[in-house]
């Protein structure tokens, strides 16, 4: 089973393939070397033979056959047993040299000729030879023993064969070793994954610590696991929160119905009970509706409906709608909204986002509070700010309030589902925007930064200059500022002189 798995494991397959390829390459290299060496040696052999033949021919033509035979014998003496000669006449009679006579043929020969002599002295040589008639009666054959060449060649072949075998052995062993090391690491990751699937979400894939691809893979997987664990934790939280938040109104509903059932009542009383029961049920349904809406927004499907929307227009509208609500509540609402800012998004959801933020500011602040709505084009993109000068949210709880059903202790008693800001967070995320909460000293400031719309700068040059002008000097938009001041002043009169909350215009920094 283990071997079967080994041959099926990807690392081992790669090792085998690698060994095969390196063997092939090595073999080709060795073959080229072998053939070059042999060719070179043979050429050297041929050159040596040619030179001797030339020397003998010169001797022959200058000083005659006997002088040539003398030189030949001298060569035989120096040759160390490697050089062999044959001089024979037309009839085949051996005139000189150490070889027995052959059937004469001309040019280059590879022959086997036995030596002169008798009995056990006779040896036969594998020769490379060149032969020619120096004159009609003098056939001269100059030869070199090729047995040494053959030996050399054998030696090379042997060593090359050994090298090749070693290559195969090493690359196979190395491949298998590396492969199984890899396999082990993959196996540990796989084991960890299995443990996680079995329910232990705190498990992580071990990281070897050498910062290689596998470590990075393990790292990515671990991050993914952390995210999954966080999400699972969220789901658990939300589930228990839902159960808790919905049990309360349902329990109250049940109590009321039961109390009504206890004794006979007048018709009007029943009507009252039924009305309040309907109201309780509506509250529960509303919570469900908000949850479904958030879920739908989070799924991202709405994005297909995105279009270019004038967020300045939305902000103006929503602020106008809520201004009387704020005033009736003894609060103020001031705006500082740049015109003509557009984002890629959904009008309905952005309207709800702004409405939720303003309502949130109105509902959790004491009388006399001023809520500010600011929108402007920053160099990096549109920036929406909703601020108040109320109690604010303690820093450590700021990120918590975005969680579903989370409510600050102080606002436990005010009505609401605790889903308003979760929806704001979901809509923000859907639009690729960034939400942050700061201390407005006093109060809370919620900032939503949209990413810069590329078309904004090309299609609407006015918007672009406004955007560029914001960072540098306020006097560029002088007219705009005047308009804004006029609006604030007019509003201030209307609302009984509410002042701007501390930093409504410095929101985006």
């Amino acid at each position, binding site marked *: 089973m283990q071997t079967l798995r080994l041959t099926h494991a990807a690392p081992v397959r790669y090792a085998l393939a690698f060994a095969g390829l390196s063997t092939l390459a090595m073999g080709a290299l060795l073959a080229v070397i072998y053939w070059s060496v042999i060719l070179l040696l043979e050429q050297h052999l041929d050159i040596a033979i040619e030179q001797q033949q030339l020397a003998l021919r010169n001797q022959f033509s200058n000083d005659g056959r006997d002088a040539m035979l003398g030189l030949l014998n001298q060569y035989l003496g120096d040759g160390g047993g490697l050089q062999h000669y044959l001089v024979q006449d037309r009839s085949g009679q051996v005139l000189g040299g150490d070889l027995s006579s052959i059937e004469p043929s001309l040019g280059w020969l590879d022959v086997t000729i036995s030596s002169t002599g008798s009995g056990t002295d006779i040896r036969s040589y594998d020769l490379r030879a060149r032969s020619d008639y120096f004159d009609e009666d003098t056939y001269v054959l100059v030869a070199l023993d090729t047995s040494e060449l053959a030996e050399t060649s054998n030696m090379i072949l042997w060593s090359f064969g050994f090298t090749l075998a070693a290559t195969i052995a090493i690359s196979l062993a190395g491949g298998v070793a590396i492969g199984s090391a890899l396999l082990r690491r993959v196996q540990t990751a796989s084991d960890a994954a299995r443990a996680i699937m079995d329910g232990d979400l705190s498990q992580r894939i071990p990281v070897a610590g050498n910062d290689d691809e596998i470590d990075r893979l393990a790292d990515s997987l671990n991050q993914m696991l952390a995210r999954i664990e966080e999400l699972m934790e969220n789901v658990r939280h939300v589930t228990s929160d839902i159960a808790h938040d919905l049990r309360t109104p349902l329990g109250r509903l049940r109590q009321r119905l039961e109390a009504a059932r206890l004794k006979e009542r007048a018709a009007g009383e029943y009507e009252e009970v039924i*009305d309040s029961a*309907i109201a309780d049920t*509506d509250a529960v*349904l*509303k919570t469900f*509706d908000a949850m*479904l*809406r958030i879920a*739908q*927004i989070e799924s991202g*499907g*709405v994005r297909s*409906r995105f279009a270019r929307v004038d967020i300045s227009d939305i902000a103006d*509208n929503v602020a*106008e*709608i*809520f201004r*009387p*609500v704020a005033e*009736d509540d003894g609060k103020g609402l001031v705006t500082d909204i740049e015109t003509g800012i557009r984002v890629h998004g*959904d*009008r*309905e*959801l952005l*309207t*709800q986002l702004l*409405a939720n933020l303003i*309502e949130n500011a*109105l*509902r959790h602040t004491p009388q006399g509070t001023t809520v500010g709505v600011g929108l402007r084009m920053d160099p990096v993109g549109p920036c929406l700010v909703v601020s108040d000068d109320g109690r604010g949210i303690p820093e450590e709880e700021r990120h918590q309030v975005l969680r579903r059903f989370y409510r600050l202790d102080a606002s436990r008693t005010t*009505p*609401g589902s605790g889903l*308003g800001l979760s929806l704001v967070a979901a809509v923000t995320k859907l639009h690729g925007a960034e939400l942050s909460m700061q201390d407005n000293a006093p109060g809370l400031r919620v900032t939503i930064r949209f990413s810069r719309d590329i078309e904004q700068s090309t299609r609407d040059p006015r918007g672009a200059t406004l955007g560029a002008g914001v960072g540098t000097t306020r006097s560029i938009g002088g007219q705009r500022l005047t308009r804004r001041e006029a609006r604030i002043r007019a509003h201030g009169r209307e609302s009984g002189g509410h002042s701007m909350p501390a930093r409504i215009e410095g929101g985006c920094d």
Partner: protein
Amino acid sequence: MKILVIEDDVETAAYIANGMNEHGHAVDMAATGRDGLFMATAGPYDLMIVDRMLPELDGLSIVKTIRDSGVKTPVLFLTALGGIDDRVSGLDAGGDDYLVKPFAFSELLARVHALGRRPPMAAAETVLRTEDLEMDLLKRTVTRHGRKVDLQPREFRLLEYLMRHAGQVVTRTMLLEHVWDFHFDPHTNVVETHMSRLRAKMDKPFDTQLLHTVRGAGYSLHGAEEASCKR
């Protein structure tokens, strides 16, 4: 009115039918999409209430089909999805209004009345009148009993919507959707606030009350003598 209800949930269908009968409307019911389409094309109806999710043929396809064949009967979609996309896709398919289940019957009734009495598109009115209240849509002015009533643009829109549906009950949700373009339910009393401001301007200074609160349902703009008959 003669109303066709295409709804597969027996309880909801009966709930709608009983309620409509009580208010003097005749109701035909279809439980599957195929039956619904057949009945919609066969008989003339004043209004159709169509569930989005139906067996055999879904509500969207039914409405697309009958619109393609030239039937102009107003359609109100019902859906359990409560989704953001559903409203738009429903209206795109040819629906005229849209209501999310579960709904209050008063809401459905108000919307049915609003749809059923929609004036034909061709009549481009320039002046709206209810009793001694007069609205000039071109000059954007409102007078009551000959006296000018100063309204903010949004209050003007609110009053215009009420006047166009004079004599009918207009629900909170209908106002939110049509006057403020809010397709969600705000937690603060936006509608009540704006209503009381409007009332202070066009009702309080005068002898008779035109703007009435209908308990448990919404608001209605009408004179004294038509109070009973139009509900």
